[in-house]
């Protein structure tokens, strides 16, 4: 995807500018970027060879064109017949070189684009994806999905520019510059001096100006973020805005911020766009110097006009790679920032995973012994949690919304590791089991239904990929899904996804129950909350959940009083902590938070 990136790179540099701090190009991140290219060695060498060929063409053409022009000037001085004929051999050779040049240029692009896209970008993305498999859930919980996606997509493509940059900018740019400088000096040192002296000036100027523009870009970037947030707020709050008649006030706020954002953009844009013209001016100075020196040499030292013409043509070619290098060196900071973000993910500590397996069929006894846990070391959440759940018993977790009822789920499923204590299933310490083996003991139905893009059958069979169609249909029938699945345009083969409107949110919940039924695990984790569900579907969901619970050891995030009253054990959660533990009766007798919670439902 590199040429796209080549274009976007201009945009992104404009946004962020080259990095502020003057760091060395090849610091740790720089070195690692190069190391990452090792598998591409062969391809890079080949494209470097192409670059060399191109430099050869670039050097040969002004020379040859110059000699043709020389012939024209010579003829002007001393007209001889057969001028046109004498031009033909040179023209033929040049035509050949141009053809080679075109072909090789295309070949180089092709090579670089494909190796970069196919092997570098794709390879890096696949490695990131693989890394995700081994990262703890806590990483996903605290990292917004957009952030991971940005790193996987945008940052990786920025990194790919480093391949392009190293081959095309550093390698071919420097080589071309050196060769051309050498030729300029060999052709005539007196004309070479102004060219070689003036060109670095253009590099200096351009990097200075890019630096100046950067502050404006930072400012604009920040204001853009604010503007987006304001628009987001305004549009999601539309009904409230209208109900309280706040449109005009919001409009004023938005316009004012938008104006500030645009104003800071003007300077940034301006500075970046005059870099090119300033370089052009410096080039023109070189050009003029060559003309003056060349003119003098022709007049007083009898130099041929063709030589001057050659130098002029070389002057044009000398500044090209210089500009590229100046741009590239600034850009590489941007690339390195992207690479750093990608490397951060690749270097994250992975979740340790023991290899223990479950040998005997599980009956479903769960003992929790003195478990301590917290998400944030400073804020202990669960302290000394103990319980003994017999096979087939039901544990209800209750508490106000947002109190942290899912913490228990996180521990049982080993999405998070507890600090001290033990969880035993049928007497076996789970920390000896591999996470996958541990999780295989549980079926899980969360409030936050998750369907992936795939057919209904694939979604239901997610926990049991080998299930036959008959088994899938049976599970769906049990979970009251069969009737609505059959009404879908392609029945069990209808493709659904998270945001498909073909199934309602209640039906999605039923599908996840069917998924758990089909997986048929000895232990069950269930969130009873049903949101966005109409009354009839809610009743179906409850019936399906009851079926699912029967005969299994269950941990239920309970929302129904019937579940709570029937539970063999109730955990009362408040502000993330388990504050009370017992049966319905014992907890009521305790007259604590549970009692208060229970009573408050019926107060006026």
């Amino acid at each position, binding site marked *: 995807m590199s040429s796209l990136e080549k274009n976007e790179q201009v945009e992104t540099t404009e946004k962020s500018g080259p990095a502020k701090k003057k760091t060395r190009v090849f610091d740790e991140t720089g070195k690692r970027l190069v190391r990452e290219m090792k598998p591409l060695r062969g391809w890079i060498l080949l494209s470097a060879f192409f670059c060399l060929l191109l430099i050869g063409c670039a050097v040969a053409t002004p020379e040859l064109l110059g000699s043709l022009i020389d012939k024209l000037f010579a003829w002007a001085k001393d007209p001889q017949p057969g001028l046109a004929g004498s031009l033909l051999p040179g023209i033929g050779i040049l035509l050949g070189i141009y053809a080679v040049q075109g072909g090789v240029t295309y070949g180089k692009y092709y090579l670089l684009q494909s190796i970069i896209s196919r092997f570098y970008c794709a390879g890096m993305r696949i490695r990131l994806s693989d890394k995700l498999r081994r990262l703890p859930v806590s990483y996903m919980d605290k990292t917004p999905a957009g952030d991971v996606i940005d790193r996987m997509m945008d940052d990786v493509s920025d990194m790919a520019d480093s391949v392009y940059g190293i081959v095309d900018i550093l390698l071919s740019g420097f080589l071309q510059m050196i060769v051309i400088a050498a030729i300029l000096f060999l052709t005539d040192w007196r004309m070479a001096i102004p060219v070689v002296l003036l060109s670095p000036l253009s590099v200096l100027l351009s990097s200075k100006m890019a630096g100046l523009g950067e502050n404006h870009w930072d400012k604009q970037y920040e204001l853009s973020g604010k503007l987006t947030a304001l628009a987001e707020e305004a549009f999601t709050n539309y009904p409230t805005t209208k109900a309280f008649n706040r449109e005009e006030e919001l409009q004023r706020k938005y316009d004012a911020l938008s104006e500030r954002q645009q104003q800071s953009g003007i300077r940034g844009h301006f500075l970046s766009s005059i870099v090119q013209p300033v370089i052009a001016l410096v080039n023109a100075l070189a*050009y003029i110097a060559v003309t003056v020196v060349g003119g003098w040499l022709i007049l007083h030292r009898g130099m041929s006009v063709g030589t001057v013409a050659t130098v002029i043509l070389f002057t044009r070619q000398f500044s090209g790679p210089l500009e590229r290098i100046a741009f590239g060196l600034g850009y590489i900071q941007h690339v390195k920032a992207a690479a750093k973000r990608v490397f951060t993910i690749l270097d994250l500590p992975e979740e340790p995973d023991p290899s223990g397996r479950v040998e005997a069929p599980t009956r479903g006894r769960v003992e929790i012994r003195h478990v301590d846990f917290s998400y944030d070391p400073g804020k202990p959440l669960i302290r000394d949690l103990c319980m003994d759940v017999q096979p087939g018993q039901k544990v209800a977790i209750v508490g106000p919304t947002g109190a942290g009822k899912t913490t228990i789920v996180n521990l049982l*499923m080993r999405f998070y590791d507890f600090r001290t204590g033990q969880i035993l299933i049928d007497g076996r310490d789970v920390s000896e089991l591999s996470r996958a083996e541990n999780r295989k003991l549980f079926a899980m139905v969360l409030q936050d239904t998750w369907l992936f893009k795939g057919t209904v059958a694939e979604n239901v069979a997610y926990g049991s990929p080998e299930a036959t169609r008959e088994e899938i249909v049976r599970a769906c029938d049990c979970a009251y899904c069969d009737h609505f699945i059959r009404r879908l345009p392609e029945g069990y083969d209808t493709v659904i996804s998270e945001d498909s409107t073909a199934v309602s949110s209640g039906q999605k919940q039923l599908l996840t129950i069917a998924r758990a039924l089909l997986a048929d695990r000895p232990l069950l984790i269930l969130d009873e909350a049903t949101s966005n569900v109409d009354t009839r579907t809610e009743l179906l969901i409850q019936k399906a959940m009851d079926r699912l619970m029967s005969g299994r050891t269950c941990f239920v995030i309970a929302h129904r009083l019937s579940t709570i009253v029937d539970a063999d054990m109730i955990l009362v959660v408040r502000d993330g902590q388990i504050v009370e533990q017992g049966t319905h009766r014992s907890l009521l007798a305790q007259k604590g938070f549970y009692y208060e919670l229970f009573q408050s439902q019926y107060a006026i």
Partner: protein
Amino acid sequence: MRKLLVYLKPYRGRIALATLLMAVSAVCDLLLPTLMADVLDKGVYGAAEADTFGYILKTAGWMLGISLVSLASVAAGFWVVYHVVAGYTWRLRSALFRKVHTMTLTEVGRIGTSNLVTRTTHDVGTLNWIISAICGEVLIIPLMFLGAVILCMRKDVCLSLIILVIVPVLIAAGMRLGKKIEHLWELADEQCDKQNDLVRERLRGIRVIRAFDRERSAHEKITDATRVMAENFIRANVTMEIIDPAAAFVLNTAALLIVFLGGVRMERGSGLTAGDIFAIIQYINIILGAIVAVSYDIVMLPRIKVAVRRLGQITESTGLEDERPAEGLTFSGAIDLEHAGFTYPDSSLPALSDVDMHIKPGEWVSVIGGTGSGKTTLAELLLAFRAPTEGVLRFDGQDAAKLAPKDIRANVSCSLQKSMLYAGTIAENLRMGRPDATDEELWAALELAQVADFVREQPDGLGFRLEPAGTNVSGGQKQRLAIARAVLKDAPIYIFDDSFSALDFLTEAKVRKALNEKLAGRTRIVITQRVVSAMHSDRIFVLADGALVGAGTHAELLESCSIYREIYLSQTGGGAA
């Protein structure tokens, strides 16, 4: 597109100025080779032998002057261009923002808020980019081409024909190729979106994926999509990269042709000089540079198309609100729905149908039902966000359709379902409904909503700054602040749509009690899913699948309404007396 360009109108003069400045610079760039040719021809071989070096110096001075003029005019040109672009962007954004607030809720919902946000940010940015590219790069190309042709014509008509033919052919070919590339880029972008969706899906489903040990298959799916994406990008690039070498080859060949034909014509004595030929070759190089620069912009074409189409959804939207000014009516609080119903434009089933509801001034009623039941639609009817598609809604006996929505909203205070706070201080948020409220009144409202303690704990108290959409307070605090704001507004009718869902029962009971004391005598409509929120009100309306299936007190409904009984039993297990 035309609608989007309207905002450029005030800048016509400045765009012309910018183009002129750019043109001056382009002409200067073209004059340099001409002067160089003069130096070579006249200075070295011409008649001014007496002071040839002086002539060279003089011409060099001219070249320097022209270079400076070129830089000055291009810098001035860019300065103007970016002011135009900034002004244009500002106008466009402002107009879009305004337009969104004149659209109906139905229309806002149809387009979707996140889409509206991308339109005003990302899509406007794309347009901003293309306008600066057009003013800064594209407009000069024809000028440069024209200038080069004119200069060539002066030198030699016959040779200039080569440029005159080749450049347009090259541009036409480039455009044809551009069409093809555009399509390839569309495909590539599509694949990129698919990949994004897959990663997002996987991250969202991390618990389920791990619970069922399916990480491997999730990884494989992404691996496959990544490979396909790479192939698509390669295909687009491979086609795109033809432009650069092909254009270079054609123009270089043209240069050779000019050398040869120039030689032929010199021999025939057409007055053409070697310097002229040299100059023409340089013009070609300049044109080549410009064409290659623009060819890279082709990548953006599909995105521009998408941006224009998406912005059109807003600018061309016809679902507009009734913007009549308020007449300053004051309602008593009587509300009558007579066989009222509402069907969403893209749906065949009504969201509400045949609802007959008569609410007396000062009555406290609850509306209970699940999410699909139509209760939020009902709130939206009462706030004049939607007009009933069947039946009539009346306030004090007057048909709501005949009233200005602004009048209705002035008489209805509300606390709505989701995210309802704004960036700014708590005081600013509270004063939305009553700008002249004193601090004491604010505290009283906060006290009522059981959120005064939280505000007191903040170092800035009422001056505590909320982030956009109130993201720096919890869901429960947001709801309570919204309740305080609703109470602060003085109105005959109050609507609380799902306003207690994030509160625990204890807090809810306290809020409910305080509300009943404070708002006694005002019409109160509590919309909820929870029986406990509804069971104590004067009357309860039960909605299911858009129909009113029961109305009466808690006790009456337990007797007569099976759905209410089901909800009640399922939520309380029958434990409540």
